[in-house]
């Protein structure tokens, strides 16, 4: 009975929270929950004989972004671009080399262990690999109750009821709580991981590729669960992924990373319909299409990602960019707001009038796109961006205005 009322209270609290932030699902203009300022992290790559570091891997380089309360912020980029490092710094598993992390207006970058504990509760992490993230020697009930007990969230006699409630919430029958992780499937294990993260009533959850280890049918279930949880509990997500389709499903805004730098930040539909940074354009054109009749053009990148040990002096992407100009090899462009709410780090858009930017972006894309083999032939889709996130009608229903295309 007691837990029932507690649940209701919590639900109402969560409801008021979301109401204030997002009356019509426009989560881009709420209160700033997390403010990341000029965050950098470098790892020592080699040391001299006496242990003095001689070279560094610049994993994250001067990254700034904000996440609003109730929002799902997607972070995409290829392997090794620093997405996970950012996530680990936010939850305190890694210490930033420089920069600040400001959570709810408080600087949490250098907290002493005692204060950190309180902040620990507010930011939780969901791991990529559900097979490695659960201790094989603890039962599910022990795994989920541990954060509650460690942080003294509930008196001992209420912990059991809370564990049942959490497991029920993520879709695991509470009868199974005395089983061990190896008795569950990958999707169920990931649900247990989610329940553990929820156990401390966090405000922000960093999802570090939470579905990339699951097969596609299970991916959808887990993503839907995460969406439901956000709506019900007023959660905010930082959603790290390398699959654009996954990010498209869950995010409100998306940031694109390349080699430790943020290249572009925009609301989801804006980014998918109107990618500005050439890297984003190439990334989007790489989304496979399930329709074999759809012949399309793709932007094919040449070469490899440069080594992060000695990143190029200019734009990080310049060595593979199909649209580079002289300035690109000299200096990395700043991330600037080239269109309203649409930030991009690219020299090509410097000194271009806002109304011409979309046109220029299209032009860059079409010049680089090459036809690929499909069965379509004559009615080949000229648009290299084959993936359609939302139809214009759908986007309109959500209160977004799509940029004019074609």
């Amino acid at each position, binding site marked *: 009975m007691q837990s029932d009322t507690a649940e209701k209270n919590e639900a109402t609290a969560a409801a008021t929270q979301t109401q204030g932030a997002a009356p019509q699902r426009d989560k881009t203009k709420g209160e700033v929950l997390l403010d990341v300022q000029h965050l950098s992290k470098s790892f020592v790559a080699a040391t001299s004989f006496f242990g003095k570091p001689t070279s560094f891997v610049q994993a994250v380089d001067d990254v700034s972004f904000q996440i609003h309360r109730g929002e799902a912020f997607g972070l995409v980029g290829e392997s090794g671009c620093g997405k996970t490092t950012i996530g680990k710094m936010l939850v305190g598993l890694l210490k930033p080399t420089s920069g600040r992390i400001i959570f709810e207006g408080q600087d949490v970058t250098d907290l002493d262990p005692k204060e950190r504990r309180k902040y620990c509760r507010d930011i939780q992490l969901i791991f990529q690999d559900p097979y*490695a993230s659960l201790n094989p020697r603890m039962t599910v009930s022990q795994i989920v109750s541990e954060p509650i007990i460690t942080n003294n969230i509930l008196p001992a006699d209420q912990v059991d009821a809370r564990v049942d409630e959490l497991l029920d919430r993520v879709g695991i029958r509470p009868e199974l709580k*005395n089983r061990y992780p190896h008795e569950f499937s990958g999707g169920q294990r990931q649900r247990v991981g989610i329940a553990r993260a929820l156990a401390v009533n966090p405000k922000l959850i960093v999802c570090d590729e939470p579905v990339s280890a699951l097969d596609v049918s299970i991916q959808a279930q887990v993503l839907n669960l995460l969406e439901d949880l956000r709506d019900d509990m007023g959660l905010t997500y930082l959603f790290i992924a390398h699959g654009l389709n996954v990010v498209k499903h869950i995010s409100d805004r998306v940031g694109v990373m390349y080699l430790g730098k943020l290249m572009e930040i925009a609301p989801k539909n804006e980014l998918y319909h109107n990618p500005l940074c050439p890297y984003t354009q190439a990334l989007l054109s790489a989304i496979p299409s399930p329709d074999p009749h759809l012949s399309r053009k793709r932007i094919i990148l040449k070469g490899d990602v440069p080594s992060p040990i000695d990143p190029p002096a200019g734009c990080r992407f310049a060595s593979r960019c199909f649209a580079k100009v002289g300035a690109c090899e000299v200096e990395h462009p700043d991330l600037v707001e080239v269109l309203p709410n649409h930030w991009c780090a690219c020299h090509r858009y410097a000194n271009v009038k806002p109304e011409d930017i979309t046109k220029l972006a299209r032009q860059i894309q079409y010049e680089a796109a090459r036809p690929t083999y499909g069965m379509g032939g004559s009615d080949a889709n000229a648009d290299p961006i084959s993936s359609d996130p939302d139809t214009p009608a759908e986007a309109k229903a959500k209160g977004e205005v799509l940029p004019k295309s074609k």
Partner: protein
Amino acid sequence: MAEATADTVKPTAEKGESIWDDVWYSLSHNVTAMVSLGFIALVALLAILSAIFPQILPYDPYAQDLSQSFAAPSAAHWFGCDQQGRDIFSRVIVGGQVSLTVGLLSVSISLVVGVTLGAIAGYKGGKVDTVIMRCMDVLLAVPSILLAITFMAALGKGIDKAVVAIGLVSIPEYARIVRSQILSVKENDYVSAARVIGDSDAKIIFRHVLPNVAPSIIVRATLGISSAILDAAALGFLGLGVQPPQAEWGDMLGRGRNYIFQAPHAMIYPGLAITLTVLAFNLLGDGIRDAVDPKSRRR
């Protein structure tokens, strides 16, 4: 027994049942482990009883009867007699007192110290790791018997000192095993998860890391009991550990070896006592390892 089986049809569904009930359930259904446990209990019981009530022994283990020197096993002397005509059966039973104590105590010493040092070194890393492991390397560089002799020279003679010396010299082995295992276990996401939740280092080590290192520690510790018994015999041979005429398996084995062709039984029976005890500890260790691992636990 029937009641127990009925209760444990769904051992995990019962509320309030501790993990140790599950472990015991699995262990008690492992025939090999239970036979081993029975054998160890028998040897230990005989050793304890013979210490309290020496009259249960068929002969006084220290009484010499030179007319029976090297007597072959017979109905009167089940395991035969040794050089001085002492009854080997009585001596094997009494020898268990010293051998089991030496084996268990010295392994406990190296287990506690070695696991603690290895866990700290492996988990903390960096300078702490370097300091601890270089000290262990220094200990490993010297042959263990030589090192034990050095310790005994400092501590003095006696079986109690031998236990400490043997315990100390095998610390590095445990520390190395634990450290290397922890280096791999601590990279698992569930350790990161515990840190994100806000667990203290001690809690992470004891709750998340060490239980996953346990299998290799259990196997090493059960093997360690045999080498501790043999090391104690070697020290006794050098006049540092067990002093004659004290009955002790390793010592009896060493002395019997001189007469292997004339009277093999003087060596065979103490040897069998060591072998079977060690085998029993190993098999029991295997059973415990399986029982504490949720994946291989019997249900």
